[in-house]
């Protein structure tokens, strides 16, 4: 495998990863930044990453870590505070906003399991593997997350746990 390998991997996965990160973070710029950073790191370590059984899992994990590290969040806050004007918001479709807002009211571990299952289209076994939990735990977590999200979407629902951002 050569450089072209990374190019293909990047081109075929970038958009999907951004959507997945957007669903988890609720912010499209944050999602794009995290995914780009994850791919940047993957490009440097591509020789090692491509040998993994699931390189996409590695990139997704890095992107999630990047998106949720305190340092990055602090930087974002600083950037926002020092901006003279708020950044122009990308116009997002209403349905998407509704779903993402509903996800944002869920705890992080619920968002993760839902995104991996519905957006990344992974079977429960791989969801469990990517999250480092038992398959049974993944199944029960998925069921509870699904119920919680459904409640949020049907009637705005009550707060489920404390959302982690």
């Amino acid at each position: 495998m050569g450089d072209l390998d990374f190019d293909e991997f990047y081109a075929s996965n970038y958009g999907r990863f951004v959507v997945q990160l957007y669903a988890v973070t609720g912010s499209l710029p944050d999602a794009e930044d995290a995914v780009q950073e994850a791919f940047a790191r993957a490009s440097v370590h591509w020789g090692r990453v491509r040998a993994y059984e699931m390189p996409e899992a590695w990139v997704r994990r890095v992107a999630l870590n990047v998106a949720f590290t305190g340092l990055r969040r602090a930087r974002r806050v600083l950037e926002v505070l020092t901006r003279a004007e708020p950044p122009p918001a990308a116009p997002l479709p209403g349905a998407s906003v509704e779903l993402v807002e509903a996800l944002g009211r869920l705890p992080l571990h619920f968002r993760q399991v839902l995104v991996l299952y519905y957006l990344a289209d992974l079977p429960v076994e791989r969801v469990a593997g990517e999250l480092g939990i038992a398959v049974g735990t993944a199944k029960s977590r998925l069921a509870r997350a699904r119920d919680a999200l459904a409640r949020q979407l049907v009637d705005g629902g009550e707060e489920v746990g404390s959302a982690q951002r």
Partner: protein
Amino acid sequence: MRSDDLRQRFEALETEVLPLTGPPATEAIRRRGRRRQRTIRAAVLLSAVLLGAVAARGAARWSMQPDLQPVSPPPTTRPAVVTSTTTAPASSTTRPATTGQSTTSVPPRPTRTVVLRADGLGVTAFGAAEQDAMRALQARLGPPQERGSWNGATPFGTCPGPVRAVRWGRLYVLFTNGPTRYSPEGRWHLFAWQVNQFQVTAIDPQYSGPTPPPDPPPLRGYSPRTATGISYGSTVAELRAVYSRRLQLGRAESGPTYQFTVRRGATTELFGSLTGGTSGATVTWLAAGAVCGE
């Protein structure tokens, strides 16, 4: 809400958001990765430099004397007792006693001398215990003008272990308790001598300028010779006359200087630096013993 309904919602999300985001050029991503890598390397390097500086500071504190410091000058009157040795050259056995005043700029000459040899300094040999060697040397040369000690990097290079140095005029005598071909580890012993052009000064761990630090002060005063008269300032022609085919000249691996070595079989007996490669070029320093950095 059924699972299929949720799946449709997520699929709709993907369909709606995907067109809003496009991947930046691959090269931009690679550049970002390389930039991050450089930042990490710089941070690691900076950390290493800081740690090194802290360690060097600690090592300097650990040393008995952090730098070569002037020590008390030798007595102004010295007995004119001559103790002949089998290795001393004729010119060095009958030096008159001096009673002149010592000054800070021109160090006093020892009343007698030692001989630069491949195996030591005549009155003492490589491998001799430090105390024994110092006793013999001071009996000849009086108290040294400077003493210093280093633990780790030394101005003489990477030596076999911690180094103590003493100086008389241009002559540096080096001791270590590291392992050398003359002694196993753990025993302070004489392992090298050097006759230098410049004063050896302490390494400044903070120095990071683009060019080498300026030359230290030139040394004057006592400058011993080999039994055949070779020392600081000898010409290449003189080296050739003395050592003939045992002399090897060559450029230093780095920098414009020339080096010379005198070999006997596979053994390097003498080595040093020259001002150039012509017959008129002169020796700027010479040394023997275990090489720091070898």
